[in-house]
């Protein structure tokens, strides 16, 4: 249940998988994303409502074949340049996109978590997204005849989230802004959670989301694993890192130097430990 991070990624994330590293500004699973880069995963379909810096890094490193998303930017700073370079120039590999709105993505995960093949919402009507994204259709209410929008369930092969704490049995606790993490985890075939710390007892916290160990495949301790984003109650957001990313990511060479020094340079040797 509790495994080293490299082992968790090795066992749970496979080339070609649909992978969601979720997090809404808070608790972004950055350490897990870097480990995916280090292990050289490729052809991934990356899903996330708000792909930000760590997805920019994974896209720049060539891990992704496709991005399923609703807002791809550097929050508070601007655009994602590795993402742009992949879409506009196919560098380092071409990137297919499947583009939704936040409401659509949130409902896709919720349908996935609920075991139904689609969700119904008021959304997209009149926008050009309807013409570009095949996974948006209309549906008529069988009671009122009103026309609404349907989106298909999103069921990742693996969902990875970062949380504050887990206990030794693998129950996971997160709080603060909890975003769509519960739905993304419940929608997935496998779930990997990185945590700030593993504790003996999970003291209840107002506003917490608890993921029971039955829906968690593996937990890896990764203190600081959400940096430069933040972990409520542990550390605050490193806004300067987001600003610095803008310059690094604008230039392919600067990006590759960053990869070498900050990701591959930070590689730790594989350790023992297997997922039960």
């Amino acid at each position: 249940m509790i495994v080293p991070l490299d082992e968790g990624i090795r066992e749970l994330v496979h080339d070609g998988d649909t992978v969601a590293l979720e997090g809404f500004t808070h608790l972004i699973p950055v350490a897990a994303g870097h480990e995916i880069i280090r292990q050289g995963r490729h052809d991934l379909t990356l899903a996330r409502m708000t792909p930000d810096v760590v997805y920019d890094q994974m896209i720049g490193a060539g891990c992704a074949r496709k991005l399923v998303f609703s807002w791809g930017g550097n929050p508070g700073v601007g655009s994602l340049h590795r993402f742009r370079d992949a879409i506009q120039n196919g560098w380092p590999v071409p990137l297919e996109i499947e583009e939704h709105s936040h409401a659509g993505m949130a409902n896709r995960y919720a349908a996935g978590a609920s075991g139904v093949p689609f969700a119904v919402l008021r959304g997209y009507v009149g926008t050009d997204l309807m013409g570009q994204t095949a996974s948006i259709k209309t549906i008529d209410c069988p009671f009122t005849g009103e026309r609404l929008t349907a989106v298909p369930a999103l069921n990742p092969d693996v969902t990875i989230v970062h949380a504050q704490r887990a206990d030794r049995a693998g129950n996971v606790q997160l709080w603060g802004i909890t975003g769509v993490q519960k739905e993304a985890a419940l929608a997935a075939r496998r779930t990997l959670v990185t945590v700030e710390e593993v504790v003996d007892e999970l003291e209840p916290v107002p506003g917490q989301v608890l993921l029971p160990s039955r829906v968690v495949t593996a937990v890896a301790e990764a203190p600081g694993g959400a940096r430069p984003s933040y972990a409520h109650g542990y550390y605050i957001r490193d806004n300067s890192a987001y600003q610095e990313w803008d310059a690094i990511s604008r230039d392919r060479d600067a990006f590759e130097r960053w990869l070498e020094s900050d990701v591959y340079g930070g590689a730790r040797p594989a350790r023992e430990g297997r997922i039960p």
Partner: protein
Amino acid sequence: MTATAYTADEIMTVAAARSLTSDMACFVGIGLPSTAANLARRTHAPDLWMIYESGTLGTEPDTLPLSIGDGVLADTADTVVSVPEIFNYWLQPGRIDVGFLGAAQIDRYANINTTVIGDYADPKVRLPGAGGAPEIAASCREVIVIVRQSRRAFVDKVDFVTSVGHGGGPGDRERLGLLGKGPTRVITDLGILEPDPNTRELTLVSVHPGTTVADVRAATGWDLAVAPDLAATEAPTASELSVLRSLTGA
């Protein structure tokens, strides 16, 4: 009151803040909308109920958040809900009075593009995309857009409709079944535009001090209509500027 120097962004933010009242629930986007909403809450609208799409309801940050999901938003909120809940239970049913949006491009019917400049399949510039904007534009009772005015941004027709304003003109929102009234005001660094009640076309209703109608028309990519009773935006008061600057650290 003596005249005080201020920037174009400052009068834009102050004018946006003035559009909010204390009894409103406001769906706040990050950046200029967030600054304006927080300014309103600290001046004439102390009970303004702010929602951020990260799930924070009734938040009262003591500093300006830098991202849509800063810890201070959660710490000071009445409650924090999940992202599916914020969209399904709060935005979609039309409970929110005002949605605040930005834009990369906006057209004469206040349709908004935040997706792509150029062709979608072969873009000139790929932008961040929709986020929650399409549903904010659809479901809030009204929408206020804040955007710096230029011919690049104010185009006759947006390259991509990310969020529907008034579609192709009168009756389009109703035909599409959109709940809210759509954009009722566009606030720029030059003036204020509002949809003409009959044509739904964005019309200049107020110019900021020191700006001429010709300036605004020169920064607009279509033949901008001007309201017969064109107003002059009241300059920011010293008090508004002081609160704004304490917020932004300027």
